């Protein structure tokens, strides 16, 4: 079940008319799942706060939430957090953009021309089944420890999600639509642009969602292994320096960024497929 952040929950009063005795369970069902999920999240935060304070867990390795938030405040105020996040975003963004530029045209060709797919499929499958993390040492050897190897790993992480989904999208084009378009005199180029591409968009956007996540997580991992900046470096380095509060602050930021990114992508996905039935917010 997907939903968009901030979208209002169905108003309970509306359904009251039909069902006067709305049970507590039904009320819960009618609430926005962000609201419904809050109590459990708050309970976790509370546990995080009291467990170290009561000595249930070692506060050196697991500082209370308030201490972590204070550290986060410092990191934000000094601009250090912003700098690291910015660097990670830049790397992931570049790698991802590169993946889009490569995967979409390639996916179109592979999805549309069976002969081309036959020739390239084995190579793609082989590359696809190698972990990008296993390749990091290779990238470092070839591209050095700088930006290029980080961008390479994020590219590698995203490109196959995009490629596979583009192929699926292109192949799922309704042959009747192709026939109809051709009967109207659509040129081959327009067939790509105006029929195959829009048909493939839902699958491509779904691939982007997976790809963006993979890019982000890969860049974090790469930064933990070999970097001097970025969110991954911040988390890893704080651990080495025994600055546990900073480490958790980094993890919280990573989680929040991942969450927001996911919501943004769900939103984009809904926009891109708004013409499909049953999405609620269709234009009239």
């Amino acid at each position, binding site marked *: 079940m997907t939903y968009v952040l901030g979208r209002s929950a169905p108003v309970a009063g509306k359904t009251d008319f039909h069902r006067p005795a709305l049970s507590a369970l039904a009320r819960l069902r009618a609430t926005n799942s962000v609201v419904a999920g809050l109590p459990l999240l708050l309970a976790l935060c509370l546990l995080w706060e009291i467990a170290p304070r009561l000595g249930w867990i070692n506060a050196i390795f697991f500082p209370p939430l308030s201490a972590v938030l204070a550290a986060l405040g410092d990191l934000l105020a000094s601009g250090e957090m912003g700098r690291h996040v910015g660097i990670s975003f830049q790397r992931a963004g570049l790698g991802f953009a590169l993946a889009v530029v490569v995967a979409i045209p390639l996916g179109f060709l592979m999805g549309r021309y069976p002969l081309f797919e036959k020739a390239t499929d084995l190579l793609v499958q082989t590359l696809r089944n190698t972990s990008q993390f296993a390749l990091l040492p290779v990238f470092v050897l070839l591209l050095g420890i700088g930006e290029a190897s980080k961008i390479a790993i994020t590219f590698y992480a995203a490109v196959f999600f995009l490629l596979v989904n583009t192929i699926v999208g292109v192949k799922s084009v309704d042959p009747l639509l192709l026939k109809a378009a*051709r*009967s*109207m005199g659509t040129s081959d180029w327009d067939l790509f642009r105006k029929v195959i591409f*829009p*048909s493939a968009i839902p699958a491509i956007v779904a691939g982007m969602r997976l790809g963006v996540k993979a890019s982000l997580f890969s860049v974090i991992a790469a930064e933990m292994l070999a970097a001097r900046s970025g969110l991954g470096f911040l988390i890893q380095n704080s651990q080495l320096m025994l600055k546990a509060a900073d480490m958790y602050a980094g993890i919280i930021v990573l989680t929040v960024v991942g969450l927001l990114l996911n919501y943004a992508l769900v939103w984009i996905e809904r926009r891109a497929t708004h013409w499909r*039935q049953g999405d609620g917010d269709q234009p009239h």
Partner: protein
Amino acid sequence: MDRITVTDIAKTFTLKPGQFVTVDGRESNAITVLSGLDLTIRKGEFITLVGPSGSGKSVLLDIIAGLTEASAGRASIDGELITRPDPRMAYVFQQYALFPWLTALQNVEYALEVRGVARAERRQRARHFLSLFGLGSFEDRYPSQLSGGMQQRVAIARALSVEPEVLLMDEPFAALDAQTRDILQSELLRIWERLETTVVFVTHSIDEAVYLADRVVAITARPGRVKKIIDVDLPRPRDLDIRNTPEFGRLKGHVWEVLRDEVRAAQKDWALSTASH
């Protein structure tokens, strides 16, 4: 004057490796769908094509539309050989074939855009043809928000908007309920009488075939060719009541008589090919 001439058309499909059909009791990797088909369609005429399932009616329409190449023979429009989709023709399918990501208006505009009509005129013409089918207030709807009957109206409006000389329709009303079908048949006739387009209309309904047509063309079981052409000299404009006249009943009986043996032959063919696999 003749608009479309189809001369000695044949079409044979080669099946994929491992696929077979039974022809005259023998297994074959090729299937001959049309053979020696001749047909002349006059300008402005409404032709309906009837014939058993699998007799190649859709393939014939595809050949006329320039989407499929005939294995032998020739098809021409106004004396010119058809080798690719021709701007003088438009095609309407049973399953509407609207672009689901475009609104009703945009779907109609698409056909005009492909033909190179300027933007402003595109919009105006698309609106005009949608309103012709009573869809004026639905132009911003996506196909998924329209009923089947409305979607098919959009598809017909899209086809007519380019002002084709020939309108090809492959069982356009077969997926609709009986009432919607009746209404659309009448709408189509009303608009056709105004536009003077030539229509080639495939249907499985003998009732529909007689109601719409100037001439009903009966196609044989596979391999398809023209078995008989039945002139329908019912007066126009026709309204739905014409179906209750004895003359209408007589024509229907006649078409059914012509088709009966072909439908049986097709059934036998089908039974054979399924029994052997």
